[in-house]
């Protein structure tokens, strides 16, 4: 040992430095490899545990729902003490409850929501909402949405959360749990919505919300421009013809994307007077709006109205020109 120390002491500084790095890297390599092996063993074990917890939860839920001789009160206490004593067990049981909730309707669905509360898993979810990490919060809100747990005050702050995944789930929660006026959460929004969120809201209204179709015109004067565009689009998608007079002023809005969406909505709603309002402004319009006006002529107008625009398209504006030629060709074919 002393002789090794003696040799090392005689080394020049660069060798000592290299030796230090080699030892350091080797230690790190061994640590990383050990972590790798540990992680693999841990994950394998966790998988095995998950399967066994899942079987326990399934057995309990099946008995709870379909076994008339099941002593619910005692069994719930036993299950809580034996099979819900770790967060992982609670998560697996929650997952199974969500699967049952998705697959059963009617009375069974009511039972599933009841067992969720009797097992006090609602408190577990509320705690995650209060203290959990953002991804756990997103999952917790999803659970509340699916099981229709009405706690809007707890979820409402997450409409403006930093992480998009949390915001999405909060939006979904309000749409899923609403019985009427599903877009009331719009009044709590402070920042513009992204296209993704708008698609998400649209799809939630179509496929998750089960109440009466809302009147989208009430959001036409919202301070966020994306909400206005969304409302115009929804008025068209849900064929709210009665709202046509309310969206006409948006043909003259300062934002070209609002004008574009309004033109599209109006020609899809077959608003006959649209062309006389938009053709005169064609020359000075932005490229995105010009293409929409041409498409409006295809939907509502005649070929002579289209040809009037030909001289107004700049040679540089190839995309508008291409739209023009495509529409002209469609007129010829038809």
């Amino acid at each position, binding site marked *: 040992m002393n002789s090794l120390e003696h040799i090392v002491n005689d080394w020049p500084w660069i060798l000592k430095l290299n030796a230090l790095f080699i030892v350091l890297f080797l230690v790190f390599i061994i640590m990383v490899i050990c*972590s790798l092996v540990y*992680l693999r063993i841990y994950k394998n074990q966790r998988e095995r545990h998950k399967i066994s917890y899942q079987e326990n939860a399934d057995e309990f839920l099946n008995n709870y729902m379909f076994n008339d001789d099941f002593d619910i009160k005692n069994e719930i206490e036993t299950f809580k003490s034996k099979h819900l004593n770790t967060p992982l067990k609670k998560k697996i049981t929650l997952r199974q409850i969500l699967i049952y909730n998705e697959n059963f309707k009617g009375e069974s669905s009511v039972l599933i929501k009841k067992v969720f509360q009797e097992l006090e898993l609602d408190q577990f979810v509320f705690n995650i909402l209060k203290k959990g990490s953002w991804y756990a919060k997103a999952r917790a809100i999803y659970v509340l949405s699916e099981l229709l747990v009405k706690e809007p005050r707890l979820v409402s702050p997450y409409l403006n959360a930093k992480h*998009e995944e949390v915001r999405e789930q909060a939006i979904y929660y309000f749409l899923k749990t609403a019985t009427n006026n599903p877009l009331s959460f719009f009044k709590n929004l402070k920042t513009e919505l992204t296209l993704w969120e708008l698609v998400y809201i649209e*799809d939630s209204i179509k496929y998750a919300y089960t109440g009466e179709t809302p009147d989208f015109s009430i959001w036409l004067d919202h301070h966020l421009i994306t909400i206005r565009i969304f409302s115009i689009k929804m008025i068209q998608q849900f064929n709210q013809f009665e709202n046509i007079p309310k969206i006409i002023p948006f043909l003259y809005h300062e934002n070209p994307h609002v004008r574009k969406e309004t033109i599209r909505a109006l020609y899809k709603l077959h608003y006959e007077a649209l062309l006389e309002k938009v053709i005169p402004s064609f020359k000075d319009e932005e490229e995105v709006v010009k293409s929409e006006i041409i498409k409006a002529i295809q939907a509502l107008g005649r070929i002579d109205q289209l040809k009037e625009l030909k001289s107004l398209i700049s040679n540089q504006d190839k995309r508008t020109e291409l739209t023009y030629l495509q529409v002209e060709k469609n007129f010829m074919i038809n």
Partner: protein
Amino acid sequence: MALLQSTSLPSISILAPAFNEEANIVENIRSLLTINYPSYEIVIINDGSKDETLNRLIKSFHLVEDDALHYNFIPTKEIKKVYKSKSKSFKNLKIIDKENGGKADALNTGINVCKHGIICSIDVDCVLESDALLKLIKPFLNNKKKVIASGGVIRIANSCIIEDGKVIEVKLPNKFVARAQVIEYFRAFLMGRMAWSRMDGLLLISGAFGMFDKNTVMEAGGYNTNTVGEDMELLVRMRKMMRARNEAYTVGFIPDPLCWTEVPQDWKVLHRQRNRWTRGTAETLWLHKAMIFNPEYKVLGMLSTPYWLFFEWLAPLIEFIGIIFFIVLLCLGQIEWLFALSFFLVSYCFGILYSVTALLFEEYSFQQYKKTNYIYKLIITACLEPVLYHPFILWACLKGNIDLFRGRKSWGIMNRTGLRNAAK
């Protein structure tokens, strides 16, 4: 919630160039047609194939001539014909038959002809995850800034079991050369690109699978046909253009594995690929040399481009000069073996540490290689890779630089086994 049924998601044009792909083209397209996304078209660009590629397509998909209008926003080689299918089952399939002009020219032709505002360029033989398009489009829709491109993690499909265009079982490649590339891809995607994307410094969206905003691509002038690194060059040019316009923008990166590709299992083919990548990198850096160390480009100028210059392009040259110097010293009997060994061990240990850390990232996040013995095989590969694989890559990169100075422009033939046939 299943957004996959949404009618409001933007439509996507998938562009896949094909050159002499008669062996697998029909099966590859059938696989692409099963992608899960509400609205997309597939545009196959037959880049003057000399084999039966086009005839097979015409026969298999009942193609007829398509007379839809298109405009050559980007100048390309002549289009002979555009085809669409008579069959309603393939109504979103379009085939362009054109004069041979290379991959970049084929993609430009696809951009001119396709009809949607978002384009997705892919290698025709890639296997996509079923929700790959949905994941890749998300950055475009979920960002307050304009997104000009997005990419995802690419995985190695060699030896995997693939059925009906889907990866059924992930297996570790049998051959060492492919296994070494597995580690290389882990390092590149799970560490490198992830980190660059965090600081918005990505300079490369892989040509095998990337999504772009069509208008921005057209405004930048499309793919450069004079470089073999067209994927990197396009993104760098787009970013440069956005900076010049002073427009807020970003490049998205999805950390999930979205696309499976076959990597070379043959040393010769690997040599050609790396040779080409080196030339592509050097050409791109040369074309955009004004960006390097230019503070006007912020992260791109002060970090990304210098990184590519020193660590991607110059590193093999520096390493080679080091080896030459070592040989000269050896011949002159001037080697201090203790010093040499210590330096070798430092770099060797660092290399292994870097690789095993990438393995740890993979194990912690995706853990796609499920079998326990795969992890041991990968650790052994990580230990052998610096001495068995890396010197070969060094040589290929060096040869790439020599070829670049000789003015070589070709891609070289990329023989592939064919994932679907091989794995079944």
